[in-house]
């Protein structure tokens, strides 16, 4: 069970409310009792009292009626006795009614008083009847005597009895009032006791709770004040397990967390300082490299432009070569056709020569036969034989010549055919050459385009490199600025004290900051070290001893 403030306060209030409730219940109960008593008092005691008083009155009225009945008026009234009698009857009826009421309401112990009264009342009534009868019978003197004699005594007794009853009733009502008063006193004492108890319990509990809360709250406030002033070295002891204890624990955790965070921040500040110094150096190198890169890029740009011109020249040459190769292929094809025509012509010549050869052969045969005939003719055929021999020689010569022409034409045909084949074989080679040259030409054009793009890219590269140079210079100055900012940050973090080493700030101290800053300053000798806060003014050092010029100013003053 966790005793939180809520639980405690709830318990206290519940207890107080319980006591109040009990008080209220008791008060209500007492009120009800009082009410009952008063109602009783009003309803029965007062009624009895009134009835008793009424009985006394009626008795007196009876006695008055009796005396009036005995008195004779000066003016005779015949109806008077009857009226008096009627009045008397009415009074008796009232008395009977009252008696009945008394009998119904009286407590049993007073019934004997009532009975004693009734006895007296009847004795008196019987005497009165006797007196009235005497009076009615004209014996008024006897009646008067009786009245003044026994009747008076009876009336005194009767009155005593009724007064005794009335006194008893009165006393009883007084007792009832005393009882109500006693009940009231009891209820008051009880209620006052309850109130005192509630006050005591409530104030003691409230004091306990308030004290316990305020003490620990004060501790919390003190710790928070310490944190506000940058002191993170302390925590507080916690006890209990209520909200205030939780608050304490939370504040403790906060302090621990803050301690850790400040530690981390100071470490980060150190890292930032060294990193910014490194960054300054690196950006310096970067700037140098970018400058070199810019120079290289310009050289590359010039080379690429030269290359571009060469490639364009190559592309033009390749186009010319392509045209020449196409023309060569066409020429070779035409030559091949011409050679084929020549071969056909040679073939035709060879065929014709064959005919000549055949003619020569047949001429030879004819000449031979002619020679044979001439020989058989003997002397007569001698001249013919000579002619035949000559014809035969001519035929043989023409045959030989034809054979030579034939072989020559055959070899020419072969040569021409092979030349034609070679020419035709040349055509695909030339076409292939042409195609290759076309490809070379296209490739050269692409190369020209590519080199133009390269040239453009290099120009862009040049631009980017220049931007890089300026950017790296900016970065260098930014790194210096960052170093000073990290100094400022270190000073700001110094505000927090997280261990007993004190304000010297071993963790976040300037001792570790200085090297980085000094490195940055050393790398940027041209840049003056910026003040921590640049508020646009100058810092004049007026505390120094001055220099030799000060004396001159003094002398001028003196003069």
């Amino acid at each position, binding site marked *: 069970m966790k005793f939180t403030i809520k639980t405690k306060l709830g318990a206290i209030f519940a207890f107080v409310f319980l006591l109040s409730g009990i008080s209220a219940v008791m008060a209500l109960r007492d009120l009800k009792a009082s009410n009952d008593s008063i109602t009783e008092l009003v309803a029965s005691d007062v009624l009895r009292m009134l009835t008793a008083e009424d009985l006394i009155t009626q008795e007196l009225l009876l006695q008055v009626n009796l005396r009036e009945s005995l008195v004779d008026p000066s003016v005779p009234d015949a109806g008077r006795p009857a009226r008096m009698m009627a009045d008397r009857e009415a009074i008796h009826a009232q008395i009977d009614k009252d008696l009945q009421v008394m009998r119904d309401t009286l407590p049993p112990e007073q019934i004997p008083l009532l009975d004693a009264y009734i006895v007296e009342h009847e004795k008196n009534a019987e005497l009165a009847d006797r007196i009235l009868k005497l009076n009615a019978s004209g014996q008024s003197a006897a009646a008067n005597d009786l009245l003044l004699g026994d009747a008076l005594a009876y009336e005194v007794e009767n009155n005593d009895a009724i007064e005794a009853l009335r006194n008893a009733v009165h006393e009883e009502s007084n007792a009832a009032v005393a009882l109500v008063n006693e009940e009231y006193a009891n209820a008051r004492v009880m209620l006052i006791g309850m109130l005192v108890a509630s006050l005591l319990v409530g104030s003691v509990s409230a004091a306990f709770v308030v004290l316990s809360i305020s003490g620990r709250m004060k501790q919390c406030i003190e710790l928070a004040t310490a944190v506000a002033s940058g002191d993170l070295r302390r925590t507080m002891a916690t006890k209990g397990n209520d909200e205030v204890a939780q608050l304490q624990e939370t504040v403790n955790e906060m302090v621990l967390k803050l301690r850790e965070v400040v530690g981390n921040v100071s470490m980060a500040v150190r890292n930032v300082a060294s990193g910014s110094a490194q960054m300054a150096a690196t950006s310096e190198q970067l700037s140098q490299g970018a400058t070199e890169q810019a120079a290289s890029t310009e050289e590359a740009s010039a080379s690429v432009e030269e290359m571009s011109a060469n490639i364009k020249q190559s592309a033009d040459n390749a186009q010319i070569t392509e045209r020449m190769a196409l023309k060569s292929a066409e020429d070779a094809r035409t030559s091949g056709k011409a050679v084929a025509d020549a071969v056909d012509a040679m073939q035709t010549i060879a065929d014709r020569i064959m005919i000549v050869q055949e003619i020569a052969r047949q001429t030879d*045969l004819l000449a031979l036969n002619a020679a*044979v005939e001439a020989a*058989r003719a003997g002397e007569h055929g001698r001249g013919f034989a000579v002619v035949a021999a000559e014809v035969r020689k001519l035929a043989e010569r023409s045959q030989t010549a034809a054979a030579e022409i034939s072989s020559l034409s055959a070899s020419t045909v072969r040569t021409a055919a092979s030349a034609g084949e070679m020419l035709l074989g040349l055509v695909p080679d030339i076409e292939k050459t042409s195609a290759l040259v076309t490809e070379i030409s296209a490739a050269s054009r692409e190369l020209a385009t590519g080199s133009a793009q390269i040239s453009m890219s290099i120009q862009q590269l040049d631009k980017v490199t220049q931007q890089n140079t300026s950017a790296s210079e900016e970065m260098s100055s930014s790194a210096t600025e960052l170093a000073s900012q990290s100094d400022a940050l270190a000073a700001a973090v110094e505000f927090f004290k997280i261990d007993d080493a004190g304000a010297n700030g071993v963790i976040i101290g300037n001792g570790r900051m200085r090297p980085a800053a000094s490195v940055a300053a050393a790398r940027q000798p041209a840049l003056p070290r910026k003040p921590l806060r640049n508020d646009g003014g100058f810092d004049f050092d007026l505390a120094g001893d001055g220099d030799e010029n000060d004396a001159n100013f003094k002398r001028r003053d003196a003069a």
Partner: protein
Amino acid sequence: MKLASLRKTEHLTLVTLALGSQTLAVPADVLREILDPLPVTRVPGAGAFVPHVVNVRGSVVPLANLKIALGIPEAGVDDRSRILVLEIPLDGEPALVAIQADAVHEVTTIETLRIERVPETASLWPPEYLIGLYKGAEGFVLLPDLPAIFSAQTSQAAAA
């Protein structure tokens, strides 16, 4: 025909022809005609010496192969081959025969004195087939005794 009968005249006109590597000569007066090779018709049952007949201007003429008789190896037909139609006495009657020649060279006239007898000891040639030989421009020219060859071959064929 014998050499002695030849020597009755002073000169003799001959037609020289080639059979294989040999040069032969036949007298011009027995030669009727020189022809280009003709379509030949095989005679059933004929011997190797006269296997075919040819149609010479309507006459059926047997075609003899002297190479068989003279033992000269066959060399085939080329554009120089010729057929010589001869008229020679066979069994006392003149008859037309044809012989194949690898080439016909020329018509020449020689002195009969230049014709010499074939040595008896020569075993290459049957001596009765040759009349004689003479020295031509390119070696010896043989003069075959055609009637003797034909009658001998014909009788051999008949005997076979």
